[in-house]
């Protein structure tokens, strides 16, 4: 069976809520039934077939073609299957994701992997602000799963993150790991300012020291060989990521913070 493909007909003037186009919600539906579904766009609704050319029939394997940053909520609440997006996507990609995989060839908007619970999201491009974060006013960001970003992230990656792993192959923006509760963020490139601001627990693993230095609200705990790092790198091996190719290391400089709070978080810098 060929993938169920939604090819955007024209660049939409308004944002489109794609949350109903997931394997979970489309299973058992014929293409003609799917065509009749109504999507919220702007302040009205529009039929799927008025927005997309639809082809293929495998609802467990969905593709979005000609995608733009107007497509929001792709993969919302998804628990199984695959979604592949060719092009940029808008906000809330993988919101509440519970399983399955989403891969984007392009950039994503704000709140990628917001409050994600499990599964895998891979962004072959840059991600916007609040990757793996919590919705505004909510206290827990992602609670499981893995997010891979081959490019850079905007500010506040891992904001309020509680569990899971964010792997940033490029650079992380300002306030990375701010208010982080737990989990792991690893960055191969540079990180912005205010790293780990308000961080409670969790681990930020850096391939190199930040250009601007470690924030003042983290204390140096010295160089160490940490036994869990080889296990972490082993877990990267099965991923389609630069992290799988990164040579494992267990020797790191450990910084604890944010000491303005409970100070149980850590920044580990390769040495």
């Amino acid at each position, binding site marked *: 069976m060929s993938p169920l493909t939604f090819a955007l007909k024209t660049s939409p003037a308004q944002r489109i809520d794609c949350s109903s186009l997931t394997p979970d919600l489309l299973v058992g539906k014929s293409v003609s039934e799917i065509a009749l579904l109504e999507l919220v766009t702007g302040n009205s609704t529009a039929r799927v077939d008025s927005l997309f050319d639809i082809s293929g029939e495998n609802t467990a394997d969905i593709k979005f073609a000609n995608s733009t940053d107007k497509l929001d909520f792709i993969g919302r609440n998804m628990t199984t299957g695959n979604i592949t997006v060719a092009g940029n996507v808008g906000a809330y990609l993988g919101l509440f994701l519970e399983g399955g995989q989403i891969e984007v060839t392009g950039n994503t908007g704000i709140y990628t992997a917001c409050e994600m619970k499990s599964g895998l999201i891979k962004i072959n491009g840059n991600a916007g602000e609040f990757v793996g974060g919590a919705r505004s006013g909510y206290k827990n960001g992602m609670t*499981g799963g893995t997010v891979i970003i081959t490019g850079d992230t905007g500010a506040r990656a891992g904001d309020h993150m509680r*569990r*899971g792993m964010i792997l940033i192959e490029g650079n992380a923006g300002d306030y990375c790991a701010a208010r982080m509760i*737990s989990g*792991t963020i690893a960055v191969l490139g540079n990180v912005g300012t205010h790293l780990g601001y308000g961080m409670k*627990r969790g*681990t930020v693993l850096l391939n190199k020291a930040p250009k601007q230095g470690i924030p003042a609200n983290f204390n140096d705990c010295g160089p*160490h*060989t*940490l*036994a*869990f790092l*080889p*296990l*972490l790198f*082993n*877990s990267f091996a099965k991923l389609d990521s630069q992290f799988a190719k990164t040579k494992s290391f267990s020797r790191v400089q450990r910084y604890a913070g944010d000491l303005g709070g409970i100070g*149980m978080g*850590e920044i580990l810098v390769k040495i």
Partner: protein
Amino acid sequence: MIINGVTIDATFAEAFPMKGTRLIITALNAKWAMISAQAFTGFATSVIACGCEAGIERELDESETPDGRPGVSILIFAMGGKSLAKQVETRAGQCVLTSPTSSLFSGLDNPEKEIALGQNLRYFGDGFQISKMIDGKRYWRIPVMDGEFLTQEKTGVHDSVGGGNFLVLAESQEQALTACEAAIVEMRKIANVIMPFPGGVVRSGSKVGSKFKALNASTNDAFCPTLKGQTKSDLSPEIESVMEIVIDGLTKEDIDKAMRVGIQAVCDLGAENGIRRISAGNYGGKLGPFHFHLQEIMA
């Protein structure tokens, strides 16, 4: 049945159900992994008084361990899941957590039945402990004076078999011991089994019950050579020494294999080296439901 002049008795070894798990201890080098493993498996010969039976399964090289360091694989068995959990936790806390450079991992996955491994040891970290979920498994990083003690949170429990055994009847102590040593060398090559007694060999095999009310096991007088004229002996005049090898395993089939290679190694020495009979601890069905018929195993 006679193999190389050694009589294989038409009897069976009687074994009982246990709960078991496999643990992997790693360390900076093989020497310290072994020291920790030996401490963990110390005083664990028999559930009668030790609360568990444990032993070293084999050494592991760097490619076989979760953290890429040298390690040792351990099997530990107890009569039930709760007693196993208690033994694992106390031994891990006193013998592995304390051992320099060590890490402790589960070597047996069974999501349906798990017991705590580092789940409660983490409190030793006094709030500084760190949890890490890696590949769906939770690990605890506990700060200790030599760095960090890494331990997996849980380990799987397997329905196992304890008390598989055979007796080596020889013309002298030296000959019995030599034969048992040869058997142990071969049996240690079999996966999923341990021989929990000192060096794998027991010289004080027991029978069920005692004339003393406080004891539920006592010396197996029928196989004690010094009592040949004093009790209902199972020994012929030329037998001067009997030694037993006890085997615990994750499955009955594993014990079958171990008994086969062990008995074969003894028989290879043969009558010319003073080995006269192979028998087994048969308690008339009072001890357990698993029966290892010697002649079937060697057929």
